[in-house]
């Protein structure tokens, strides 16, 4: 009887309620905050770095030449954009390498992209090469003013 009375008294008591509620809230905030941080960090998508490569562009007759001069080998599905007098044209590397260079499915040192672009005498030409995998521009040049 005495014990039941004590329990009843304890139930009615509101001592330490604030501390308990505060502790639970702090725990909840801490756990949820760190869960969000943990998930954010774990799911960071590793950014594919822009490849370090030396490309050299030039003009030979009515062809635009892009030569791989060392560095990382590149995929053949990379693109290059030629702008002639403000008109943009997009090309795929694969289409303008010779058969020997296509064999290994890579654009490697010494291999040249030869892109015929018609009569370009006296025209303003700029060129950008885009690496599709890293979605980055790996070369930009004004090759004829």
């Amino acid at each position: 009887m005495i014990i039941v009375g004590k329990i009843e008294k304890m139930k009615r008591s509101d001592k330490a309620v604030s501390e308990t509620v505060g502790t639970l809230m702090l725990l909840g905030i801490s756990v949820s905050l760190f869960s969000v941080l943990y998930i954010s960090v774990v799911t960071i998508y590793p950014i594919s770095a822009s490849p370090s490569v030396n490309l050299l562009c030039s003009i030979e007759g009515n062809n635009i030449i892009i030569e791989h001069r060392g560095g990382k080998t590149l995929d053949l599905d990379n693109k290059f954009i030629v702008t002639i007098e403000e008109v943009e044209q997009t090309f795929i590397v694969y289409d303008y390498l010779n058969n020997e260079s296509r064999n290994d499915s890579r654009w490697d040192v010494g291999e040249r992209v030869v892109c015929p672009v018609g009569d370009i005498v006296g025209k303003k030409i700029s060129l950008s090469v885009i690496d599709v995998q890293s979605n980055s521009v790996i070369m930009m040049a004004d090759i004829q003013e």
Partner: protein
Amino acid sequence: MFMLKKFLKSDDGLVGIVVTVLVIGLIIVVSGIIQSVYVPQWLEQKEADHMHIVSYQFAQLKQSLDILSVIEQKNAISIYITLGTTEIPIFGTGRTYDNLNILTDNCSVEISNGTKSYSFSLGTAAFSSKNLYFVDQSYIYEAGALIISQSGASMLNGKPFFSVSNYTNVSFTIINISSLAGKKVAGGYGTYSIYMEYLNSSYYTVNSFRFINITTNYPNAWRTFFNSTSLKYSLLNYTIKDTSYGISVEFSGSLGNLILKITEISIQIAPGWIE
């Protein structure tokens, strides 16, 4: 006993402990991701930057050898080549070690006119990288040409002196480098000096030359060289063939004369100099 029971029942500092455990876990996860994803990217970029530096330094090497060959005087020039890369701070990984060698009789040039043949065995200077992440590259100086090689392919980065005059007459300059025993190899990490000293030059005239044969490990580069020289615009008819030892350029039709200059230059690459 009572104190221990009291301590176990106590919830003082509970939030602090939980937060500390979470923070430590988070730090471990973050550092793990940095180590496995970002550090390799940093190191690859660092190695690529080092390759750019070596490319520039080898261009200086060719320039210096060309100058010594042109002035033909008893002079010496020193340049510096950087081998290896430093590790990145905090993580302490990524140190690489490279090699620089002077190779004897690693390349040869033979010029003949059917009756007489001139053959020259030449020394080469070769840098080879041992990168951890970036593609391994070699820079080679042979017979006056600067060649870059990677993944089994090669490309000409600087050509030797080769010109055509009067449509059929050719001038060709070859630089032969030699070294002394003990001064041929530098390997590891650091910046090493290359000491180059002019020795002598010899001239040869080959009338009605018919063949230029190059024994080399880099036939692609030499093929590019012969395809891009003024030979294209001369009156000489020629074909370039791959051979088991390199390439062969055969001339036909009206033949010209070739003036060949061979410049001998001594190189020392290890620390200290032998007089």
